C-alpha cells in the first residue's frame, strides 16, 4: 500500500511539473508516462483520467502548503509573527518549488471548467483554507486582528501573495522573493491588525 502511495505521489509530482510549465491542455498522459518511465496504461491504473489527476494535484499542493501553515498556527507566537512566517514559507515554496504556485495560478485558476465537478467551492483547497481560517479566527479571538468578513481578509492576504508571486514569475521584480518578506508581512499586518 505504501509503495502505491509513493508511486502516486511521484506521478503527481511529475504531472505537476509538466502542467505548470506546459499548461493543462498541452500536456498529455503519454507525456506524463514518458517522464515517469511508465506505460500509459499503468498511469491509468493510478489515475483514471487527466481531469482527476488535475484535481488530485491541487489537493496535494494544498495539503503541502496547509501542513506548513499548520505548523505556524501551532506555534505560540503573535499574529504579527505568524504573518511573517506564513509569508516566508509561501515565498520559500514559490522559490524552491515554483511548480506548486504556478500550477495554482496558471492551471487551477485559469481552467475552471476542468475543476468544476469534484472541486466545487473550496473542496480541493480545504486543507489550506482551513489553516487560514484558524489563523484568522484566533487572531481576532486574541484581539490582535480586526474582526471583518473572512473573504475580505483572505482576499487581502492570499490575493497579495499570489499576485506578488505572479509578478516574480514574470521576472519584473528587482530582488529575490525572500528579500520582500519583511515589507510584505508588515503591509499585511498593518492592514489586518486591530486598530
Amino acid at each position, binding site marked *: 500500500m505504501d509503495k502505491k502511495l509513493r508511486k502516486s505521489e511521484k506521478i503527481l509530482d511529475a504531472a505537476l511539473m509538466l502542467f505548470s510549465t506546459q499548461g493543462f491542455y498541452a500536456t498529455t498522459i503519454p507525456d506524463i508516462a514518458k517522464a515517469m518511465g511508465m506505460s500509459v496504461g499503468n498511469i491509468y491504473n493510478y489515475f483514471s483520467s487527466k481531469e482527476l489527476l488535475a484535481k488530485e494535484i491541487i489537493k496535494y499542493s494544498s495539503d503541502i502548503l496547509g501542513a506548513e501553515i499548520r505548523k505556524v498556527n501551532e506555534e505560540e507566537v503573535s499574529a504579527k509573527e505568524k504573518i511573517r512566517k506564513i509569508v516566508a514559507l509561501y515565498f520559500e515554496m514559490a522559490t524552491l518549488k515554483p511548480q506548486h504556485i504556478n500550477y495554482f495560478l496558471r492551471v487551477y485558476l485559469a481552467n475552471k471548467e476542468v475543476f468544476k465537478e469534484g472541486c466545487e*467551492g*473550496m473542496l480541493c483547497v480545504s486543507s489550506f483554507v482551513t489553516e487560514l481560517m484558524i489563523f484568522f*479566527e484566533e487572531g*481576532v479571538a486574541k484581539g490582535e*486582528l480586526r474582526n471583518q468578513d473572512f473573504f475580505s481578509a483572505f482576499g487581502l492576504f492570499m490575493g497579495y501573495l499570489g499576485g506578488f508571486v505572479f509578478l516574480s514569475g514574470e521576472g519584473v521584480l528587482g530582488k529575490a522573493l525572500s528579500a520582500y518578506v519583511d515589507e510584505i508581512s508588515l503591509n499585511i499586518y498593518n492592514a489586518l491588525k486591530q486598530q
Partner: protein
Amino acid sequence: MSHKSSIIWLQGLTCNGNSHSFLNYAHMPSFAASFEMLYHPLWCGAEDFMSLLNSDVTFDFLILEGALSHDERLIQRFNLPFYEILDTLAVRAKHIICAGSCASFGGVFRLRNPEKITGALFSGKEKGGYWLEKNNVINISGCPIHPRWLVETLLALHNGEKVLLDEFLRPKEVFSYLAHHGCLRNEYFEWKVDSKQLGEREGCLFYEHGCLGPMSHANCNKILWNDVSSKTRAGSPCLGCTEFDFPRRALYETQKNMSLPQTPFGISKRAYYTLAGVAKSFKIERLEKKLIDEDN
C-alpha cells in the same frame, strides 16, 4: 405506606420561573406519592415556615431557586436576612438541589452585581459562590429548569440511586446531551444551509441567528418542552440557558471572528472548519427549497 421524602423550597433572587415550570410536571400524582412539600413560597404547604425554621428537624431536600447573596440588603425573606435562613436550613438538609441557572451559576440576576450575587457553588464559570465548597449540592441549571430534570433527579435520590454529575455538578443523564440533539433542523446544520430569516421552517439558526444548541448541554430536543415542542422546534434559537455564561451578550446574533463561529462543544476548529467548508462547497437543491411544497 411507603416513606415520603421531605422538601423545603427556598427562593433567593428569582422570577419564579423554575417553580412554575415544576408545576407543569406531567405526572404530578407520582411526585406527590413520594414527596412531601413541607414549604414552598408560592402556595400553602404542609408546615408554617417560621415554625419549620425554628425547629431543628432535619429534612431530605432543600431546593434553592434564584441567585444567592450573603448581603442582607440584597435578599431578605420574612423580614430576616436571607443568609440566616439559608445557613440555618442548609445544615439540616440531606441534599441541596439548585433549581435553575440562577441558583447554579448566578444566572440573569447575577449580572447586576457579580461580586455579591452568585450561584450556590459557582459564580459564572468560577468555583466558589455562596459557598466555597459543599459536597451535597446538585445543580440543575436551565432558565427555567424542565420539570422532568428536577423530578427525575429527586426521584433517583429518593430511591437511593447514585446520580452521576458532570464538572458543574449537573446530572449527566440530562446534561450530557446537547440542545442540538434532536433539533428538526439538523439536516440543515449538516449541510450548512443557513436560515435567511426567522419565521420559516427551513434553515439552520446556528450561523446567523445566534443558536447555541451545538454548545449547550440540555436534552430539550429529546424530551421536549410541555410535552410538545422546544425553542428550536418553534423556530427560535437556543439561548444556552443551561450554561454558566447565560445570558451571553447579543443573544440573537452569532458571534463570529472573521466570519467563523464558535465551534460546537468538543469539536476542534480544524475538524469543524474543514467539514463546514466542504459542506458549503455543495449546493443541495432539496435543502434550498421549501420543506413542504404547498403549490400542488
